[in-house]
């Protein structure tokens, strides 16, 4: 039995601790992702879904808990070291690539993820050909524009390349943070199709945050619904298969209703006792 791709134990994250603005972004989250699984994370704004990805990627410090990837405890690893194991695509299509560098240069950078970088020519003919083939696999015609600065491309094209970069070296875990939210519908569709293809081909363990109920109903094999820094619903396997977009919306309504009850109760208490 191999170690799971990802395991979180008691992961908590608190912003502005000890002040009036204290926000508990993650509240003792426990989560295990099996190898090769494709999990979607849903949640309202501020429910902690982006914090969850930050906690795994190492871009946000933890208040408590352990993070392990394929059995290796990476809790103390800084972000750039975790990159050896983790590939990432951000919500902002301009965040995942370096605008001034060419397509080929960006890919060459990503191809050294988790490897030592030396004072060696980055783009020799052989490597260039390899990268060209990889870009051709996207089917966007970008292989003929390898020397174009990546900043000249559209958001959709850049996001597709970022996805390629995140998976050029096979990651133990792929993190997608609402990576189609900032794209127009056509580009979003295209990037989703690419995502499905790349994830299926490499059997990549994937954790994808999304706002889209439609995506959540169609993609992946497990759905998590985050609420107030906790995993409120965990719908694996069969439960996920039966799930429709409408039922997901109902789940959300229930959460909102629970929130309102809490707020009403708090207001009642304030009126009665303050």
């Amino acid at each position: 039995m191999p170690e799971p791709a990802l395991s979180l134990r008691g992961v908590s994250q608190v912003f502005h601790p000890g002040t009036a603005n204290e926000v508990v972004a993650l509240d003792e989250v426990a989560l295990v992702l099996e190898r090769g699984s494709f999990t979607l994370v849903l949640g309202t704004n501020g429910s902690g879904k982006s914090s969850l990805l930050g906690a795994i990627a190492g871009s946000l410090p933890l208040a408590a808990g352990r993070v392990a990837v394929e059995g290796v405890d990476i809790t103390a690893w800084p972000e750039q070291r975790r990159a050896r194991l983790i590939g990432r695509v951000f919500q902002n299509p301009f965040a995942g690539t370096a605008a001034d560098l060419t397509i080929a240069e960006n890919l060459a950078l990503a191809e050294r993820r988790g490897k030592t970088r030396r004072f060696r020519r980055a783009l020799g003919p052989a490597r260039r050909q390899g990268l060209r083939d990889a870009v051709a696999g996207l089917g966007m015609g970008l292989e003929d524009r390898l020397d174009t600065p990546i900043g000249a491309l559209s958001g959709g094209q850049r996001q597709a390349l970022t996805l390629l970069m995140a998976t050029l070296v096979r990651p133990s875990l792929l993190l997608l943070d609402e990576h189609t939210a900032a794209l127009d519908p056509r580009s979003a569709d295209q990037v989703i199709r690419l995502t499905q293809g790349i994830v299926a081909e490499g059997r990549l363990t994937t954790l994808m945050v999304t706002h889209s109920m439609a995506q959540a109903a169609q993609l992946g094999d497990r759905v998590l619904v985050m609420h107030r820094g906790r995993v409120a619903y965990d719908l694996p396997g069969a439960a996920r298969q039966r799930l429709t977009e409408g039922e997901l919306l109902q789940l959300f309504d229930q959460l909102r209703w629970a929130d309102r009850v809490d707020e009403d109760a708090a207001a009642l208490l304030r009126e009665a006792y303050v």
Partner: protein
Amino acid sequence: MNLLLGAVTMGLVLAPLALGIFVSYRVFQTLDLTADGAFGVGAALAAALLQRGAPPLAATVVAAGGGLVAGTVTGLLSTRLSVSTLLAGVLTSTALYSAILFIMGGGNLSLASMDTLGGVVERFAHRFLQLPNAVTLFGTSVSPGVVAMLGVTAVIAAGLVIGLALLLATDVGLAMRSAGTNPQMARAVGVEVDRMVVLGLGLANGLIALGGALFAQYQGFANIEMGIGALIMGVASLLLGEAIVGRRPLGRWIAAAAVGALVLRLLVAGAIRAGLPPNALKLVTALFVLAVLIAPRLVHRPGRPVQGARSHA
């Protein structure tokens, strides 16, 4: 003719400064105020070592090393101690002021009778190339030493441009550039961003100090004020070069810095010949940089999209 050759040589002498500014300002997108101190310390180290009889080449290399150390200190202050790059640069530059006084044992050091890189080249030229005692260029008699100096500075500047272009195209070079333009992305692909910043600022100030060392040897003296305004002069060179040569592809952009240094000195020589008082030079340089920086905004009024501009979400 001599004036022209002098201006060109001076431009080439200052090319390493412009290249250093290219690294800190363009690759790492920081206005690194270490520049003034690094230029001064390069000049001071070279002068002090030459005075103690060090071979000119060794003195020049050690001087560049001094700048590398200064830049590394600034880099460490900003990454390890989270001091803002602006403050880190000012701190290093201020400390270097004292260092320069220590190194030179005072505010001034003349190299009048010392052997310098120029002297070495001149002897070399005499011995191996059998240069005559006077060269005639376009009908003017020019001393072969002047031509030799021009030649060697041209070789140094070209070598640095090519070397920097090759360096920035290596795996480490790409990592440095990504760390400078998009640290978030750099970390996501596993680049040690902090290490790259330290390395980059070290490289930048090493180049700047090399410029200082060449400048002192070419001028025949070093003084405590030599580094003042080096940053702005480097930025002016860079902007001028970018306007003339362009910014794409990378090799061309790097060459632009060196070309800018050269053209700036030609403009300065021309302006002084036309009657500009030398005391006004720094004022004019500052105004020039300001003009270049605000010109795009004056041409393209707010609200009107700039042609060819990319939108950033």
